[in-house]
């Protein structure tokens, strides 16, 4: 294993030297007091003509502007490139004959050597694989700076707020400087973003508090060649997100937040969203049952093994079994029956607990729903000697809270469809004589307009309008 650890180390060493360069445990220093501009011609022989290992030297904190120029103009064909800067994870747009110039703008906050190369398997790709941006560290200076931070907007969990940090040296604002923003979390301050100060020395960024309670917002300026670092902490009380009434088809998402979703609908191409909790029992029962059966049978066998261990601990068979037979019988049926009883009781107890938890979630989070079936025909009728295509009935009514089965039948000779955009319901094209079912939960009361989903189905396509009324 030690040798293996050494081999792993060797593997680490064969990686490029910047493999260890992404350490951001201490906020990097840097402001953009000067902009360093480079122009790099990219052609099939390398960078700037024939240089395959072009190095661009920078100091930490430099604002950088690199212009890449297409250099394969004399070729009879196009030889597009995309330049990627590793470490900063920046890439240009496609550099090609039709789009010969692309730029990269960034502040050199991280120190180290960062490769840049062409991502596209272009002609001469091997000559465009070893460019490098070398960022040298710069120690901070001595001129004292002052940083102030404030928030603009209501500090409520989940709502946007503007963070503004003002950096000054004496009475003079410091522009073009990098300010890092941190917010306290369970695990200490977390960097939530970075902004550059404007001519008034103000750096701004928008933020949404994910947590509530007493939190700290910290702005940090890491210093430059002449300016000393400074930071400022602001303690804020973030109000908890107000409880919202349930909205249609809420499904708790994996981040633990309630995000309103469009109503749950099973259309032609939709797969039911099956979760252990949070959806009606009818939708998840078959899958849950299958999972419980497979996993449950394994755990039931474990229970049998645990029962054996318990028997080992007791050291001797139960009294009743000892009476029933001699040593020979011990290893046969009577002992087993004794354990079977215990296992049965255990299994029943487990089943009761599982069923209880299950019922709590199912019944506690979703009300019992009734199913309501509604039929709509799409048909052709004559009105004032003109062919009209209508939904029949033109207005259908459903009751809030019910599970709705909407049966759409096209009795016309043309292809039509039914769409209720507000509810994200769509039958898709329904051929003549065909019937399509849409299932959804009517969780919002209101009036929803029904349209035909097949443009050009008939001259009066635009007049094909119906209504679904969901009453509370």
């Amino acid at each position: 294993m030690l040798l293996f650890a050494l081999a792993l180390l060797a593997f680490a060493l064969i990686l490029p030297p910047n493999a260890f360069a992404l350490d951001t445990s201490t906020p990097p220093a840097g402001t953009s007091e000067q902009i360093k501009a480079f122009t790099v011609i990219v052609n099939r022989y390398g960078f700037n003509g024939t240089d395959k290992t072009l190095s661009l030297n920078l100091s930490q904190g430099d604002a950088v502007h690199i212009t890449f120029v297409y250099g394969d103009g004399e070729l009879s064909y196009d030889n597009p490139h995309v330049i990627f800067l590793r470490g900063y994870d920046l890439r240009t747009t496609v550099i090609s004959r039709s789009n010969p110039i692309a730029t990269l703008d960034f502040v050199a906050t991280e120190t180290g050597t960062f490769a840049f190369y062409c991502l596209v398997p272009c002609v001469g790709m091997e000559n465009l694989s070893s460019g490098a941006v070398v960022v040298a560290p710069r120690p901070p200076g001595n001129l004292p700076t002052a940083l102030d931070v404030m928030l603009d907007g209501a500090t409520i969990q989940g709502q946007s707020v503007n963070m503004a940090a003002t950096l000054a040296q004496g009475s003079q604002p410091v522009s073009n400087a990098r300010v890092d923003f941190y917010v306290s979390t369970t695990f200490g301050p977390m960097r939530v973003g970075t902004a550059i100060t404007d001519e008034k020395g103000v750096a701004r960024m928008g933020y949404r508090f994910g947590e509530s309670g007493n939190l700290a917002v910290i702005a940090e300026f890491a210093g430059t060649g002449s300016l000393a670092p400074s930071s400022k902490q602001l303690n804020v009380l973030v109000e908890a997100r107000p409880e919202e009434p349930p909205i249609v088809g809420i499904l708790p998402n994996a981040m633990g937040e309630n995000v309103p979703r469009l109503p749950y609908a099973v259309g032609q191409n939709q797969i039911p969203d099956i979760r252990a909790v949070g959806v009606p029992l009818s939708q998840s029962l078959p899958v849950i049952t299958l999972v419980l059966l497979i996993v449950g049978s394994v755990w039931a066998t474990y229970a049998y093994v645990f029962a054996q261990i318990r028997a080992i601990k007791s050291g001797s068979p139960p009294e009743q079994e000892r009476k029933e037979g001699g040593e020979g019988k011990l290893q046969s049926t009577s002992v087993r029956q004794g354990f079977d009883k215990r296992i049965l009781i255990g299994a029943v107890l487990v089943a009761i607990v599982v069923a209880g938890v299950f019922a709590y979630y199912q019944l506690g989070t979703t009300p019992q729903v009734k199913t309501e079936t509604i039929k709509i025909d799409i048909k052709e009728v004559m009105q004032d000697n003109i062919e009209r295509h209508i939904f029949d009935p033109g207005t259908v009514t459903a009751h809030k809270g019910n599970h709705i089965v909407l049966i759409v039948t096209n009795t016309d000779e043309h292809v039509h469809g039914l769409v209720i955009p507000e509810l994200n319901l769509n039958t898709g094209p329904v051929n003549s004589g065909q019937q399509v079912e849409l299932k959804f939960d009517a969780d919002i009361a209101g009036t929803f307009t029904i349209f035909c989903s097949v443009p050009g189905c008939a001259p009066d396509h635009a007049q094909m309008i119906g209504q679904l009324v969901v009453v509370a």
Partner: protein
Amino acid sequence: MKESTSIPKLLQPLANYSKAYYAFVGFLLGVIGLGAYAYSTQLQNGLVVTGMRNNVLWGLYITNFVFFIGISHVGALMSAILRLSGAEWRKPITRMAEAITACSLAVGALMPIVDLGRPDRILNILLYGRIQSPILWDFISIGTYLVGSLVFLLLPLIPDIAMLRDRLSGVSSLRQRIYRTLSFGWRDTPYQQDRLEKAIGVMTILIIPIAISVHTVVSWIFAMTLRVGWNSSIFGPYFVAGALLSGVASVILAMAFFRHFYRLEDYLTPKHFRNLANLMLAMIIVYIYFVLNEFLTPAYKWETAEGQLLGALFTGEFSALFMAAQVGGLVVPAILLSLRRTRNILGYSIASMFVVVGIWIKRFVIIVPTLARSQIAEFWATYQPSWVEWSITAAAFAGFILLYTVFSRVFPIVSVWETAGIGEVPSETASPTTISGFGFTASQASSVQIGSVSGEDL
């Protein structure tokens, strides 16, 4: 440090702790400390301190996860299959294999949690997880497997722990309490033997499908994703084969280690190494067959997106790692295991080292290139693991070795009651009680002459 001459070889490591042992444990704790510091950095700053970004969102952590879950298979599969087939030679090595399972699972199962930016939200997988998500399948199957493998390790340990409880004097009260609790009042009665036989028998059969299903489910995390390189139907058996291969290699390494440092030459004979080496060679051939299937079929067609990935693997930026995995992890060990000159314990150990490193790199090569080579060239990306990831990886390996080492110092790493008569002078009263079925023999532990053992306090 006292050393009693009456301590049998198998129990000497439990009684005498050398300075070298403490130094080794201290070194491992140091590496784990570095990993803990790195992890605290990650917790404070988020996953931005790793090399993972939007495109390459799985890196070293998931590589370690798949690797550790893989080597965990050996205890379950190899041990269970050898028990079922009644292979007598397996007795000195099954516990080593089973302990590898438990230790590697404990470390491997932590890796996805480390991979989470917000580990405090792990409970949400259970509360809000979607049943059609392979992540939830993983959660359930690995949890089930962890419990099963611990029980599978514990059951054959019970008679040995009872012996330690009765015979190992002078150990700390904590260790005495552990022995007392985990021996479950074992007095070696026929009734207890009957129960133990039943329990081991059931677990031996049950653990095989569980182990196979776990690594199949791990492979489905990839294979259920519509991504070039992962969109494959052979991933289940492919991963199981790779898991078994790396697991057997790990057992050979562990055997070589214990044979040398614990002086177990009488128990771990060249025959054991030879048998396992043959098994490893067979698994290498099976694995090469899978590798051919995995790459020949798409490479023959060279469909656009597949071709870009294969190009990166065969001749592009991942070619060095790719070839290291295939040549270093499969071809070189196969040669070492085949040549007469290298068919010895040193040769087997070197071959196993190549296999273990090769399979680890193979896991990396399965995971990262597919993510780096998005089907749209505009979104191609690179991945450079940061020092945080390397430190946590080193800590994971150190943690695994530490768990394994401590286990071998608290419990006999070779089953005493199953190997009674090997390497010891048979006692006059030794009359092993043979329990039929499932290919194991339960000799009466109390009848094994182990003498009076005096250990030193922990």
